[in-house]
């Protein structure tokens, strides 16, 4: 009895390892194709479209940050636009006042936003669910005011205009394409880092805290430390995205960082899939392109469509595009793989 059970279990396990590797191969292939497309694409598109894709990737990094906090750790933030602004202003002030080269501003922006996130996350430990949403909402609403108030640093209402970076001459790329590749590299690094973090011990701790904080604590997870860490990492990613936005657009002003920016991130996150890494890219596309199309209908249409999409996704596809399609895709690949082995 016991022996058959064990044999059964090993058979099952064997099956699973085989299928997992086949899914793994498919995933690698898929990523490789996507990266190849991402490298070729800018040479086939107009400058303006390349710029738009760069924006998509920037939003994707910001949404990725929000996914870590909200999707994996279950802490709701309606104020990530504020951290995006912090990253953007850190980069802008470093470049404008201190003449720091643009590529060197990413690390300081990341550090500043990590520290801000941890500082914000510490009192946030005591807030659950809607309360944290409230505090972060308040921050998002107050952000433009604060930026205007400290005008010796932020340039007040006028903001800061930056010199756009020049591409290294030996590459022979124009500015928009160079910035595209610069952001692409940052995005790939960010996704890799996020995957390493979330698929390991830390990620499991994040998810455990999201699903059942008390059980997680009982299993020896230091909930306070991991929640603060989730906040810090999340704002770090979003801050880097903000810095990239400042570099690529070459301009920062308080009115670009309103509550609606924070809500855009939340929508992007919900559309792509909250607890996914790849979903962030779909979120980025959504944030960049949907307002463009909707603007043709009316000034107010983008937000109406945003709102309707949010409701629709929550009712029909609460796990977002990637969260819904991903498991289905993996399942199909698995069946495809085992069918092929059976044929052999």
């Amino acid at each position, binding site marked *: 009895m016991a022996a058959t059970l064990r044999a059964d279990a090993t058979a099952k396990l064997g099956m699973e390892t085989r299928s997992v590797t086949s899914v793994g191969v498919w995933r690698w292939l898929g990523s490789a194709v996507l990266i190849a497309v991402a490298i070729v694409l800018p040479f086939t598109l107009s400058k303006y479209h390349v710029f738009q894709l760069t924006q998509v990737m920037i939003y994707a990094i910001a949404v990725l940050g929000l996914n870590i906090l909200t999707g994996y750790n279950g802490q*709701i933030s309606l104020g990530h636009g504020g951290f995006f602004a912090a990253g953007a202003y850190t980069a802008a002030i470093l470049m404008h006042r201190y003449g720091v080269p643009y590529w060197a501003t990413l690390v300081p922006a990341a550090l500043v936003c990590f520290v801000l996130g941890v500082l914000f996350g510490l009192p946030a430990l005591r807030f659950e*669910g809607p309360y944290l949403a409230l505090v972060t909402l308040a921050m998002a609403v*107050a952000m433009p005011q604060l930026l*205007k108030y400290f005008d010796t640093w932020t340039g007040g209402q006028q903001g800061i205009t930056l010199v756009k970076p020049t591409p290294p001459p030996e590459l022979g790329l124009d500015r928009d394409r160079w910035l595209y590749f610069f952001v692409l590299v940052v995005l790939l690094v960010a996704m890799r880092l996020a995957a390493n973090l979330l698929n390991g011990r830390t990620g499991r701790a994040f998810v455990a805290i999201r699903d059942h904080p008390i059980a997680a604590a009982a299993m020896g997870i230091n909930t306070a430390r991991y929640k603060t860490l989730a906040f810090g990492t999340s704002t770090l990613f979003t801050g880097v995205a903000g810095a990239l936005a400042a570099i690529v657009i070459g301009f920062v002003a308080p009115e670009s960082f309103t509550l609606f920016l924070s809500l855009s991130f939340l929508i992007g996150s919900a559309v792509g899939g909250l607890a996914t890494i790849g979903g962030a890219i779909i979120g980025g596309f959504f944030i960049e392109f949907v307002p463009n199309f909707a603007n043709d209908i009316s000034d107010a249409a983008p937000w109406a469509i945003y709102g*309707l*999409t949010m409701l629709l996704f929550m009712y029909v596809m609460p796990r977002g595009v990637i969260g819904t399609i991903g498991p289905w895709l993996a399942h199909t690949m698995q069946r495809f793989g085992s069918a092929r082995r059976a044929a052999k």
Partner: protein
Amino acid sequence: MHQLLQQIFSGLAAGAVYASLALALVMIYRATDLVNFAQGDMAMFSTYIAWTLVNAGLPFWAAFVITLAVSFVGGMLIERIVIRPVENAPILTAVVVTIGLLLIFNATAGWIYSYTLQEFPSPFPDRPLFGALMTTRDVGVIAVTLVMLVALFCFFRFTATGLAMRAAAQNPESARLCGVRVGRMLALGWGFAAAIGAVAGIMVAPVLFLDPNMMAGVLLYAFTAALLGGITSPVGAVVGGLIVGVTENLVGTYLIASQLKLTVALILIILVLVLKPNGLFGTAVVRRV
């Protein structure tokens, strides 16, 4: 001294508005355990309805009553259609859904009425009273809020429906066993909240001028008020609203530049949540594991 009293009275008038909106938030929180981020924009939309009616030539108070009725029905419909499907969903879903509602109301108002500022008629003349200590408008706003509070109190205290609504909010299972139509009561709660919000919107519109983003700041103060008073307590919402109104006015006048007023709300929210998370009158939530 005179200026201080003046500031306190105008703070009380602003506070009465915050108190109304906070009360609406508390009603929804008690009924459906959910923070309604769309409350401010629902109120703004109601105010636009009132504005349309007044512009169509109706007398102010007739427009006021019709708006309240429309908002009441609208609130009930929102509960039935939008909120009911996510009643037992995780908090995140509920938050995202109310944010979705916020965007829809905001954008629809912008679409129909455009984003330009509109003047909203005040039902009360703006005359100084008691040696310019306060204005008739302030007194009017406070009076309307008081009347509404007394009416609500009487409704919940002395009518069978009010009792059933309290029962449904406090213990849905037992209420259902006693024959209370819990679902209907929750919808009523949303209806009341929408109507109360409409009062707040109409009272504040003559001061702030009407535009689709009018209520963003007011909503923030209302949240602060609700948290300060304890988000489960209607009395707390009112007291919290008045305290926040006066604090905002005094701090804005004497301590810091008025362009940082919203930051004051942020700091107040954080202080309340850190120092007294259940607020002044709220009850601690005990969760069974």
